């Protein structure tokens, strides 16, 4: 029994309700008892005879009913009208999990929440009105909270005046579940049916051929496509074997394999070449699969096939075309690549892979800039910007040369030919580039230019004039000193132009000697005067030597010219020192000869270098170039003999006919060629690279690739332009063909031998390419380990190499992508020592530092460098030694001159003094006086001479301090001196005017004094001398021009230019000018002025001479200088 309190709680009753219910319950119970009593009375009244038997029978019947109800399999519950449970059978207790007592104290809604009071009343009403049982489904809640579906059969019953509702509830949970499953199964089945119908339709209407056979291969089913394709009807096909389609092309083994595959339960895929009913052949691709039942047993085979004849034919055509393209592109010895408008690579041929070191997979899709095109070139050009421009204006870049970079960091020079590929609307979609590696050629040209520059640097710095002539004696090169000395240009001097600077009296004899030298091929020395810049002539010792090649023919003449004017002067001035000076001069000759010999050797070395480069070029190329060298004015200075092979014209023809080169240019290319040549004349620094055509003597059109660059001397002087013209006719023809089909190629030279290596930083894995093995001189087959490599390094370089490697490692860790260059020696296993240059790139890959590099042999370069260094050192030593010797000798000579002049001066004074005394004191007749006056004059002259020599020596050694001096005042002093000395004996016309300031020293007086003395000495009869000073301008500079006129016999034209040369005048001069004029010249030179002699009356050399001195105006404050 549920306690009442719990019941209350459940019914949520208030205490008053509780009381009412209790009352109601008592009343009920009373009613019930009354009913029972009434029944009992009725029974007693109706069956007074068998009351006991009746009661027994009734009790029996009640017991049976009770038993039957209790053992009924459905729950039976009696309810009163207010929902109270008044009876439950055993089954109800079982299914709800409550005891009977518990249930009898509960209401119906305690076990079925749907039984609300309202519902109960409706039910009640329905059952009472309809008079039969109601059937419906409801849900019961068991004690443990389990909810289960029940089928309720409810009946209304009236017993006495009491009404009841009897319900029989059957648990139908299981039935419900079964029902749901059944519905689902039905749905699935319907879906499956739909699908099957679809599949069947799909197969029937498929665009592919479907054939189903049984396990023996007998056709069970074919779809309409089969009939359409093969021509066999369904009826014809069923029961046949698919081999009715066989052509016999497929080998039996293949069929065997097919059968084995499908019988083992796997799919077979393949292509058949089959025959239709009408005999036509067709291609089909097929998938044959086994069809299995649920147990995995193969029941059928199904083939799904597709007609691929069209595709097959297209593929075949494509394959053939691609094969052709591939052959062209892959076998090309040129880089062929394409990139789209974004710069991303879309094609990269095998040659490009090899050259740049990128595999196709790595390269395709990547931007060329940053990969094979560096952002900027080593020359500083901005390649990124150029590429951008190229994408926009591909037509401007039909051909170009630029630097590219390999994966290992090597930089290469590539000559590119570019072609835009357009879509049908004419929009550029891709650019096709064909490139050739010209690094070798470029390096060669650089090396050649460098070696030429080095030669010029040496030649231009030797202290003699030097020149080179070809075998015929035509001079084509002079060193810088030649130009400096003569003030002439290469154009003026080359060929036979040098005759212009030879003294007119010597031209004939020099030319004769020269021609006989060329004829006899013998070395020759010759001395003759040459005109120097200021117009005066100086004596030169010329030594000419032939330069022979290996077979003894003369390739060049090499000559030096040594200024021996000073030597000759010194000989004259100091006759007793002549012997010594001769020895000295001889030494100088020996030195010069040694120098010439060294230059010859150097020249030979250069020639050998050039030859080896030439050989290299022949090897590296299948052709060699027509090289020209033109002067800045555009004239041919050099034309290589190979021009004959290319143009059919000999080099001589180009020399003799300067217009020939332009005339052989193809008429279509004349304009472009002319523009290119003009641009050279306008701008020296232009480098050119373009193609043009010429017509050879045989009438053939030949394509020429013209590459030119300017050549400068170290001091920046433009020497002209070097051009290399390569016959690229073959290439052009091939290129044209390629451009027509967009798939043609061009040949190129390959770069020098380069070895490659790779290792990880732990040196566990080392790889050497076969070239690297060779370059390191490793014995073939020796293990490629780091230690092996280290063992090749020359012991003297080992420490440096290891130190550098450690530095590189450090740098590489800080800066990924670090590259390093290292030069060191290795010892080959045969003992030979080689210089190698190694370029390494460090990269971090997966946390590991990898080193990759390229190595090449630079022994030859090192040798050339060392040789040059040795030459330079030897020259320096010789010059140093020579300078010391000359200094020492100069000191001695100065000392001798000083001692001698002092002593002679004293002697002169004594002689002169006594003669003066004698003339003064002795009473002599005219003849006696005359006898004394003569030696007196001689002594005076001797004194002047000594004085001048002493001043000359001091002037030359720079002993006099330079200061501002007034020409007017100095000339005034000179005038005073001579007027005082000669009195009325001379007329010296000079109007003194001061303010002519020049930079000079106290010897300025001696300069003019000497000129006046010279004028007096050479005057006939009464000397009349005019002195004039004026300011003039010459070559943009202001000078004071001092003219001293005399009325003597004048100076013959041939002597005018050499009169100041003490040495050259000698006996040939009618008036021994002595050392005086030499002193004048020396002083004027020292004052940076000019002196010359001219006729007093123009054109008549017999009416007296005019000595003109020009001294630069010294700019002093506030216009002291005369204007």
């Amino acid at each position, binding site marked *: 029994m549920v306690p009442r309190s719990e019941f209350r709680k459940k019914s949520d009753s208030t205490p008053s309700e509780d009381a009412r219910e209790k009352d109601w319950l008592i009343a009920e119970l009373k009613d019930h008892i009354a009913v029972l009593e009434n029944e009992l009375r009725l029974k007693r009244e109706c069956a007074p005879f068998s009351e006991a038997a009746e009661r027994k029978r009734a009790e029996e019947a009640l017991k049976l009913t009770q038993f039957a109800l209790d053992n009924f399999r459905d729950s039976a519950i009696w309810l009163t009208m207010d929902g109270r449970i008044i009876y439950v059978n055993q089954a109800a207790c079982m299914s709800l999990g409550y005891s009977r007592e518990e249930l009898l104290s509960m209401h119906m809604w305690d076990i079925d929440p749907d039984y609300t009071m309202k519902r109960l009343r409706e039910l009640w009403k329905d059952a009472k009105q309809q008079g039969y049982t109601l059937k419906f489904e409801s849900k019961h809640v068991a004690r443990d909270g389990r909810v289960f579906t029940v089928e309720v059969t409810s009946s209304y019953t009236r017993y006495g005046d009491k009404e009841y509702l009897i319900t029989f509830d059957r648990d139908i949970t299981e039935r419900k579940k079964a029902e749901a499953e059944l519905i689902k199964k039905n749905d699935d089945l319907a879906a499956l049916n739909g699908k099957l119908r679809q599949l069947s339709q799909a197969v029937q209407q498929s665009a592919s051929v479907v054939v189903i056979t049984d396990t023996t291969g007998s056709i069970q089913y074919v779809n309409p496509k089969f009939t359409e394709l093969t021509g066999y009807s369904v009826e014809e096909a069923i029961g046949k074997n698919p081999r009715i389609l066989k052509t016999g092309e497929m080998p039996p083994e293949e069929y065997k394999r097919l059968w084995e595959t499908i019988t083992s339960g796997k799919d077979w895929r393949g292509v058949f070449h089959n025959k239709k009913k009408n005999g036509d052949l067709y291609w089909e691709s097929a998938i044959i699969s086994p069809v299995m039942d649920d147990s995995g047993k193969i029941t059928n085979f199904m083939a799904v096939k597709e007609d691929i004849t069209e595709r097959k034919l297209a593929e075949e055509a494509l394959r053939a075309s691609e094969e052709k393209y591939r052959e062209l592109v892959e076998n090309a010895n040129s880089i062929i690549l394409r990139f789209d408008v974004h710069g991303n690579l879309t094609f990269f041929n095998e040659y490009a892979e090899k050259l740049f070191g990128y595999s196709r997979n790595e390269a395709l899709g990547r931007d060329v800039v940053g990969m094979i095109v560096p952002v900027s070139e080593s020359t500083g050009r901005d390649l990124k910007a150029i590429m951008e421009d190229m994408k926009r204006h591909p037509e401007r870049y039909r051909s170009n040369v630029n630097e590219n970079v390999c994966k290992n960091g090597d930089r290469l020079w590539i000559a590119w030919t570019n072609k835009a590929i357009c879509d049908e609307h004419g929009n550029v979609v891709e650019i096709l580039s064909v490139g050739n590696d010209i690094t070798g050629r470029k390096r060669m040209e650089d090396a050649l230019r460098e070696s030429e520059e080095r030669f010029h640097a040496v030649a231009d710095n030797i202290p003699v004039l030097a020149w080179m002539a070809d075998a015929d004696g035509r001079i084509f090169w002079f060193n810088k000193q030649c130009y400096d000395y003569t003030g002439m240009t290469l154009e003026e001097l080359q060929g036979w132009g040098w005759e212009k600077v030879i003294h007119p009296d010597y031209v004939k004899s020099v030319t004769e000697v020269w021609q006989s030298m060329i004829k006899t091929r013998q070395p020759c020395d010759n001395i003759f005067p040459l005109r120097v810049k200021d117009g005066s002539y100086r004596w030169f010792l010329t030594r000419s030597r032939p330069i022979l090649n290996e077979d003894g023919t003369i390739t060049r003449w090499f000559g030096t010219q040594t200024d021996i004017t000073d030597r000759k002067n010194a000989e004259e001035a100091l006759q007793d020192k002549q012997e010594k000076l001769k020895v000295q001069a001889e030494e100088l000759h020996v030195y010069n000869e040694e120098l010439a010999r060294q230059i010859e050797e150097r020249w030979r070395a250069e020639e050998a270098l050039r030859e080896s480069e030439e050989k290299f070029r022949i090897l590296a190329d299948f052709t060699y170039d027509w090289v020209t060298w033109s002067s800045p004015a555009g004239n041919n200075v050099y034309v290589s003999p190979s021009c004959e092979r290319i143009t059919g014209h000999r080099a001589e023809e180009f020399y003799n006919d300067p217009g020939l080169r332009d005339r052989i240019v193809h008429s279509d290319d004349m304009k472009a060629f002319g523009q290119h040549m003009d641009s050279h004349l306008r701008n020296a620094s232009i480098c050119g690279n373009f193609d043009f055509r010429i017509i050879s003597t045989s009438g053939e059109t030949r394509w020429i690739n013209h590459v030119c660059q300017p050549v400068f001397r170290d001091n920046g002087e433009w020497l002209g332009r070097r051009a290399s013209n390569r016959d690229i006719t073959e290439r052009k023809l091939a290129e044209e063909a390629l451009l027509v089909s967009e798939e043609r190629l061009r040949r190129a030279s390959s770069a020098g031998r380069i070895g490659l290596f790779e290792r990880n930083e732990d040196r566990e894995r080392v790889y050497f390419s076969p070239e690297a093995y060779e370059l390191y001189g490793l014995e073939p087959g020796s293990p490629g380990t780091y230690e092996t490599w280290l063992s090749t390094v020359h012991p003297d370089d080992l420490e440096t190499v290891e130190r550098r490697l450690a530095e590189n490692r450090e740098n590489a860790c800080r800066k990924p992508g670090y590259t390093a260059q290292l030069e060191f020696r290795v010892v080959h296993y045969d003992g030979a020592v080689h210089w190698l240059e190694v370029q390494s790139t460090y990269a971090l890959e997966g946390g590991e530092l990898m080193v990759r590099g390229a190595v090449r042999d630079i022994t030859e370069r090192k040798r050339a460098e060392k040789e040059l260094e040795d030459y330079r050192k030897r020259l320096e030593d010789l010059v140093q030694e020579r300078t010391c010797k000359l200094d020492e000798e100069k000191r001695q000579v100065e000392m001798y001159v000083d001692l001698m002049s002092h002593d002679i001066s004293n002697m002169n*004074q004594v002689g002169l003094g006594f003669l*003066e*005394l004698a003339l003064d004191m002795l009473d002599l007749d005219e003849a006696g006086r005359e006898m004394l006056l003569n030696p007196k004059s001689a002594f005076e002259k001797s004194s002047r001479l000594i004085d001048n020599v002493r001043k000359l020596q001091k002037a030359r050694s720079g002993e006099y301090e330079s200061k501002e001096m007034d020409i007017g005042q100095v000339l005034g002093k000179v005038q005073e001196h001579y007027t005082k000395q000669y009195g009325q004996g001379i007329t010296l016309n000079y109007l003194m005017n001061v303010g002519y300031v020049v930079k000079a020293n106290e010897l300025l007086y001696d300069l003019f004094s000497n000129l006046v003395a010279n004028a007096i000495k050479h005057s006939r009869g009464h000397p009349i001398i005019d002195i004039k000073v004026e300011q003039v301008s010459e070559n943009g500079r202001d000078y004071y021009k001092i003219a001293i006129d005399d009325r003597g016999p004048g100076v013959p034209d041939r002597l005018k230019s050499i009169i100041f040369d003490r040495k050259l005048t000698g006996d040939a001069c009618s008036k021994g000018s002595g050392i005086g004029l030499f002193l004048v010249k020396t002083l004027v030179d020292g004052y940076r002025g000019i002196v010359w002699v001219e006729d007093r009356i123009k054109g008549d050399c017999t009416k007296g001479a005019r000595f003109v001195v020009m001294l630069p105006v010294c700019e002093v404050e506030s216009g002291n200088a005369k204007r």
Partner: protein
Amino acid sequence: MRKDSIGIVEDESQVANLYKTAFTARGMSISFVAEDGLEAIKAFKDSDPKPYIVIMDHRMPVMTGVDAMKEMLKLNGRTKYIIVSADSSIQKEAIESGATMFLEKPIQLKQLISCIENLSQ
């Protein structure tokens, strides 16, 4: 002190002879002739009366003319000195040290005599 008394200092004996002959011919008296600086100092000390003028070569063995002059000026400040040299660069030093006159060699006898006559007046 006679205004026409002269001392001669000259290492070249022939030059000294020339001076002696010329000056004697002019009626001047020769106080002493010395061949180097030291000898000149000694001769100057011994001379009595002291010469009015000393003509002195600069470049001489043992002691130079200017050095000798400095010593001699200490002994007697009234004597006038004419320094003779081929080296014009010592002119400044000679005048600053007390020489009355500097003559650059080669000198003409006439010139020398006119100088001496000017000093003696």
